[in-house]
């Protein structure tokens, strides 16, 4: 269906897409609502990690015993996403496909070296996190491709996710995810980025806005990485 429609957007949780529609910032010609599609609502263990299907709500991930056992980093990150009422609708796969550079879950997928399974009428393929995020709100997926599942490898120890935001539940000004010896940053580049724990700000050129200047964001990265490494 996605392949047959011009300018179609997938609607799952709607917690990012609906605000864009309400503000007329996005004007897709068609919305394809996944919510009545069956067989996309499972959280299960596979390949030494945890798979989260397209209609799994963030609040379900937060409460999931499978996630708590296999990938507690994912559970911890989910609790930092907006507020519980938002997480009751918002989906994990939707957050990845939306690719907000300040969002937690894309950075977690990147830090863990996870992947998404995408499907279209042409078939199914796996896209590694490192190849998924292409720019601000942009992924490498084709318009007819749907993220049907995200796979998060089991979180190594130690792990941590730390962020700084102006208000509880807001998008982070800057954040850091540590998964063992891998480190990913969010909110400081057009996509989440992997960073060298010994020199996390190298090559970073964060943008500035009303909430934080580029220098302040670099300062936050240094402090947050210090905290993440102390975990």
């Amino acid at each position, binding site marked *: 269906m996605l392949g047959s429609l011009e300018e179609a957007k997938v609607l799952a949780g709607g917690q990012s897409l609906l605000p864009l529609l309400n503000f007329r910032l996005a004007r897709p010609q068609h*919305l394809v609502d996944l919510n009545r599609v069956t067989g996309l609502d499972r959280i299960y263990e596979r390949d030494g990690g945890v798979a989260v299907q397209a209609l799994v709500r963030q609040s379900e991930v937060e409460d999931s015993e499978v996630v708590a056992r296999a990938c507690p980093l994912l559970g911890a990150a989910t609790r930092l996403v907006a507020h519980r009422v938002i997480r009751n609708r918002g989906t994990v796969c939707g957050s990845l496909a939306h690719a907000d550079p300040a969002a937690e879950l894309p950075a977690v997928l990147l830090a863990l070296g996870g992947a998404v399974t995408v499907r279209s009428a042409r078939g199914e393929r796996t896209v590694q996190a490192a190849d998924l995020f292409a720019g601000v709100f942009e992924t490498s997926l084709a318009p007819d491709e749907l993220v049907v599942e995200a796979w998060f490898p089991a979180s190594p120890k130690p792990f941590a996710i730390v962020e700084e935001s102006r208000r509880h539940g807001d998008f982070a000004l800057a954040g850091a995810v540590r998964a063992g010896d891998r480190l990913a940053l969010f909110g400081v580049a057009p996509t989440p980025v992997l960073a060298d724990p010994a020199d996390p700000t190298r090559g970073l050129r964060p943008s500035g806005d009303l909430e934080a200047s580029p220098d302040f964001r670099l300062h936050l990265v240094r402090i947050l990485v210090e905290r993440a490494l102390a975990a």
Partner: protein
Amino acid sequence: MRVNGVEHPAAPDSRRLLSDHLRHDLGLTGTHVGCEHGVCGCCTVLLDGQPIRSCLMLAVQAEGHEITTVEGLTRDGAPLHPVQQAFHECHALQCGFCTPGFVMSVVGLLAEHPSPTAAEIDEGISGNLCRCTGYASIRRAVRRAAELTASPGGREGQRPA
């Protein structure tokens, strides 16, 4: 879709937000619309018992589901719902614009955490903005609502410190 136990026909326009459908088509104006992008929490309603933002959902998506708005918490002439009663007793409102959203969020919070800790109360109401009363009396009201829910009618007239 069922709203407060009553079956209603589908929204006339597939683009209609659930919040607008409730207010404009069904006349249920207790659900307030503040920011229309999910930040203020005024439009919070229950979808199959779970609090959600009605401004971040299309009305057609609620087909086949049960919606509860603030009007559905109690019947006319019946005693207030424990959460409404607690907000009343603790004076947890001033202008009242945010109140329906707070009440619905707290109903959802108490369903998950019948005896919430201070941290759970803060987390539970963090998605709702109040710009006049302040949050101290709202926090008190959540604790009072938990008491009233646990023992309806109990400790009548006593207010938590």
